[in-house]
């Protein structure tokens, strides 16, 4: 039935080929135009699992306490001391400039120059205090001396001033929406403004500007992603050479490349149509689409050549090739698509986007490379001689076909088994999340990470903050019981390795109470009477972010030493343990907000998604193979090598110190989805021959002769396409590049080594 349908389609397409090609051209022009409108896009919320319980907490309290999207600008005086007029002028300028950049929450810009930066001191008759920078401040040695003593009284060293007085901080929270336009904040434009209006303008020999925060990181990542254009050209160039070596024909080199580029432009055009931008992470998809397109084209060229060699006209040969490849090619591409679609189950915006753009791209290849390509070829006249290389391959295939004999199979399968066990053991140690300090998307030497290290070294705060929200009842903070629970929680948590410091209303109230008692540290307590407690808490404004208006919500800020997976896991475990013991009906410690809260949620979402994703990918591939081969044995022969290779890829991640993260999670799905192609191509020939009664070894030999070079070539093309990412300025692209290259190459080896060995066992011939 299927065959009839394919034949019908073939005769329709080839009879109407001019018309069909015309349609393709029109679509290409339209989608190409759409593709030209594509914009880079990197929104904060896309990177987080919005439905995770932590993120529900985050979203619920984001408005009141600011979210995780903050920016820190450290202005450093390279002389080592900030107390000079030039520095203070610059700091003031930086403060003002940041204040006026659209998207900054102006109420939350904090630095020495913000009016809320005040000091308090105890004098005989109570408190005295004022802004750290007095209203009559002049940039003179006397004025600076006053500021210096105020800084010490204000207790801002380590927060707004570097511990060694070599730098000062300007902090800001970002809004999600531009207040002027009401549009979502353009993170990348914002990052560019930071670079232009702060760093470019104020960095001199004596002053260094260090900027960190999600927006800046996204900007740097996007800048790094621009290098991708070069890699893309490089990939096209190398691929072209390889296709030429394979086809020995300029025309047969050009057509696959053109068809694959058409696929890429369709994919990009469709992205704009569905309303997506190009994210630094999904920028890798065009490479994949291109490489997959080329590899399927190579199968097509291979088929055409074989038929031309058999004496058919180019047009007839193209029709034959179309007919024989539509089903295996279609199935292979369909399983790629389904493999990518399984990523939709992961509740992280950016992975869903990746899933959609990748599956769109691969689905498009079915049209461009399985239909358009043979139609274009049919217009050409190809003369093929028996290539010396093809003849040269014969003894190689002959030798390789021994893999399908029981003797070799035993050895191969034993080695595979050992490899699998080793890989599984390694894979079980795979870490989740970031394994390095700094922004994992960027290399350690990148400016952004250097800035992060500077700020971590010189200030006692970082962006590695996890916020635990204490949800209680109205006026809760006026009760000793409530605050002392919070205090106890904070203390026990601060004793966890990885926690650098903590702050909450409870610890601040103790400090204020000390202040009310002449600054005597012996009064560093939470007063038992509500009247005294109110006095202490009342001095803490809601703008401090330590309480809401009726103090029913009080965050505990936990500053971590870093955001490595281990650190987050350890702190999370402690928090969970504590909440289990301390949460009551009236007082709940809730995870989590702050940048590390977001990371924790992401790590948990990624960890939770891993198993289902694998099940879905393998399930989809399994069903598709079962449908196309109608044989459980054949299906297993395709899937077992894939599974071994996925496990080895995870072992490689452990070995290379690559954590399972938003960027690496999809790799396995992509690798499996694409890796299955090899097996499908080889086995589709083998299955036919086996059914004809051929021995396993002969069937495998036939398959190698027909598809072998194409499969090897496909593996190499795909690997080349993604291996250019090794040189990316972005760490995660490099990681993805390494893993995909590994998956593509080793899956190819799996299909020509493990698959025949399995076949030899599954279709054992009675002697």
């Amino acid at each position, binding site marked *: 039935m299927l065959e009839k349908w394919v034949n019908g389609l073939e005769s329709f397409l080839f009879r109407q080929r001019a018309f069909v090609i015309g349609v393709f051209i029109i679509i290409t022009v339209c989608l190409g135009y759409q593709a030209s409108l594509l914009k880079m896009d990197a929104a904060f919320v896309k990177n987080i699992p919005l439905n995770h319980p932590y993120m529900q907490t985050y979203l619920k309290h984001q408005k009141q306490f600011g979210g995780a999207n903050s920016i820190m600008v450290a202005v450093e005086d390279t002389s080592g001391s900030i107390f000079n007029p030039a520095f203070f002028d610059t700091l003031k300028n930086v403060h003002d400039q940041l204040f006026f950049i659209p998207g900054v929450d102006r109420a939350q810009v904090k630095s020495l120059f913000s009016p809320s930066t005040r000091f308090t001191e105890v004098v*005989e008759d109570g408190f005295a205090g004022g802004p750290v920078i007095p209203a009559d401040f002049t940039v003179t040695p006397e004025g600076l001396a006053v500021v210096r003593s105020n800084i010490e009284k204000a207790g801002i*060293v380590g927060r707004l001033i570097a511990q060694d007085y070599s730098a000062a901080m300007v902090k800001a929270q970002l809004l999600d929406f531009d207040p002027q336009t009401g549009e979502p904040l353009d993170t990348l434009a914002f990052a560019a403004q930071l670079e232009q209006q702060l760093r470019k303008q104020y960095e001199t020999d004596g002053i260094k500007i260090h900027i960190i925060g999600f927006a800046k990181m996204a900007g740097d990542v996007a800048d790094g992603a621009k290098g991708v254009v070069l890699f893309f050209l490089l990939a096209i160039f190398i691929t072209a050479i390889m296709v030429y070596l394979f086809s020995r024909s300029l025309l047969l080199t050009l057509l696959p490349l053109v068809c694959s580029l058409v696929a890429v432009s369709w994919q990009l055009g469709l992205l704009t149509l569905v309303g997506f931008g190009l994210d630094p992470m999904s920028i890798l998809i065009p490479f994949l689409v291109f490489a997959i397109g080329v590899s399927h084209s190579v199968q097509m060229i291979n088929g055409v050549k074989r038929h031309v060699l058999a004496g058919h006209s180019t047009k007839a040969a193209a029709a034959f090739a179309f007919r024989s490849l539509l089903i295996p090619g279609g199935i292979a591409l369909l399983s790629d698509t389904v493999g990518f679609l399984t990523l939709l189950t992961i509740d992280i915006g950016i992975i869903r986007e990746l899933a959609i753009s990748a599956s769109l791209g691969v689905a498009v290849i079915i049209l461009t490379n399985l239909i358009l390509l043979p139609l274009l070829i049919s217009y050409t006249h190809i003369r093929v001689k028996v290539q010396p290389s093809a003849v040269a391959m014969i003894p190689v295939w002959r030798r390789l076909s021994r893999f399908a004999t029981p003797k070799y199979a035993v050895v191969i399968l034993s080695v595979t088994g050992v490899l699998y066990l080793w890989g599984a053991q390694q894979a079980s140690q795979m870490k989740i999340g970031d394994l390095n300090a700094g922004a994992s998307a960027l290399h350690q030497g990148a400016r952004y990470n250097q800035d992060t290290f500077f700020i971590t070294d010189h200030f006692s705060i970082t962006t590695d903050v996890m916020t635990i929200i204490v949800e209680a009842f109205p006026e809760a903070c006026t009760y000793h019981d409530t605050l002392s629970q919070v205090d106890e929680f904070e*203390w026990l948590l601060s004793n966890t390795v990885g926690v650098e410091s903590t702050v909450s209303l409870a610890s601040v109230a103790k400090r204020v109470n000390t202040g009310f008692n002449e*600054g005597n*540290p*012996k009064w560093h*307590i939470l007063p038992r009477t509500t009247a005294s407690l109110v006095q202490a808490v009342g001095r803490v404004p809601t703008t401090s972010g330590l309480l809401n208006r009726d103090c029913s919500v009080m965050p505990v800020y936990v500053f971590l030493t870093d955001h490595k997976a281990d650190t987050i896991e350890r702190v999370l475990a402690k928090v969970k343990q504590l909440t289990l*013991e301390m949460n009551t009906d009236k007082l709940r410690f809730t995870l989590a907000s702050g940048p590390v809260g977001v990371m924790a949620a992401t790590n948990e979402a990624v960890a939770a998604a891993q198993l289902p994703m694998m099940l879905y990918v393998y399930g989809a591939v399994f069903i598709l193979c079962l449908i196309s081969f109608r044989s459980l044995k054949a299906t297993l022969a395709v899937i077992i090598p894939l599974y071994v290779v996925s496990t080895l890829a995870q072992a490689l991640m452990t070995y290379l110190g690559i954590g399972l993260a938003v960027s690496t999670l999809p790799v396995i799905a992509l690798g499996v989805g694409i890796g299955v192609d090899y097996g499908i191509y080889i086995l589709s020939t083998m299955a036919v021959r086996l059914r004809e009664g051929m021995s396993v070894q002969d069937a495998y030999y036939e398959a190698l002769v027909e598809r072998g070079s194409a499969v090897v070539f496909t593996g190499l093309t795909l690997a080349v396409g993604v291996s250019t990412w090794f040189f990316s300025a972005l760490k995660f692209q490099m990681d993805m590049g390494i893993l995909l290259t590994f998956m593509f190459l080793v899956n190819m080896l799996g299909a020509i080594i493990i698959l025949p060995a399995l076949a030899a066992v599954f279709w054992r011939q009675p002697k």
Partner: protein
Amino acid sequence: MWLSILRYRLLAILCLLCVQHPLVAEDFERTETNNFFNDPIQPLASQALVLDIVSMQETAIAVGERGHIFSFKEQWQQVHSPTQALLTKVFLLTPSLGWAVGHDATILHTQNAGQSWQSQMQSSRIEKPFLDVLFFDEQHGVAVGAYGLFYRTHNGGRSWESEYHQELLFDEDIAYLEELKNEDMTFYLSERSTLLPHFNRIIALSDARLLMVGELGLVAVSHDLGQHWHKKKLTYEGSFFNAIEAGNAVYVMGLRGHLFKSSDLSTWQAIDLPIEATINGVMALKDHGIRIVGNAGVIIDVDLDDKSRLVQQRQGESVVAIAELSNGERWIAGNKGLARLTENQ
């Protein structure tokens, strides 16, 4: 043989019981984790607020936040404490007998050089902290604190009785209280309990007199182990937090760098300090000067000629106490916990 069979039977029955009552096992597990996570012995305890260090011969004890108590054995080691209240002061009568006091009117006692502690008094109802404790012998001692808190024991602390030292009230307050007494007894009692100044420190002088300093410029002397007090007049009316007798003179010190010296407890001479920071702690130096420590991390030496010198200023720290241990090491305590002063400091 049958015995071992019986034992197995018993085990089997026990196992059955466990299975039938999963709650038993669960409860047990729960307490286990509780103990682990709410263990008062925490790694950072010695870096949290520590308010006092005392040293006598081989014994050294420090106390601080959340009832933390530390004993020095080559290193500071946290020991179990019967309270979670902030402990403000610790006193050693002998190297093994000691008392510690703190918030929630807490008094703790040790008989083994600080290895274990028993609570002698604790009442969150009193809502006033003890700020110092002094024992004259094994049986007799006093504990003093905020708002004129004054307790005395005659039996080594097994029972404590409150005393009210009306003689330390201000004249105008005495008149005010007399007036109230006739009008409203309840209000009178409540006012009476808060009108006395904080008693911040009480020390025994070499001539067996007692000296007590406190809030609102309080400096008082007693000839009868604290039964009756006589106020001394100084030019300063801010709080005094500490006092010491060293080199034939008595020093009192307190808020915003105020330090006074007297040889007869009648005439007091102000000593200028390089920094106007509140002074919390003091120790006598071997050459008969004193070293004082305080807020803003100041450590200041004052020699016999009343010349003062800033030895060190520790950023972001409030130093509350300083002591020299028997091994010659000098340790300070404060909001950053315990820290050792190195030799050139």
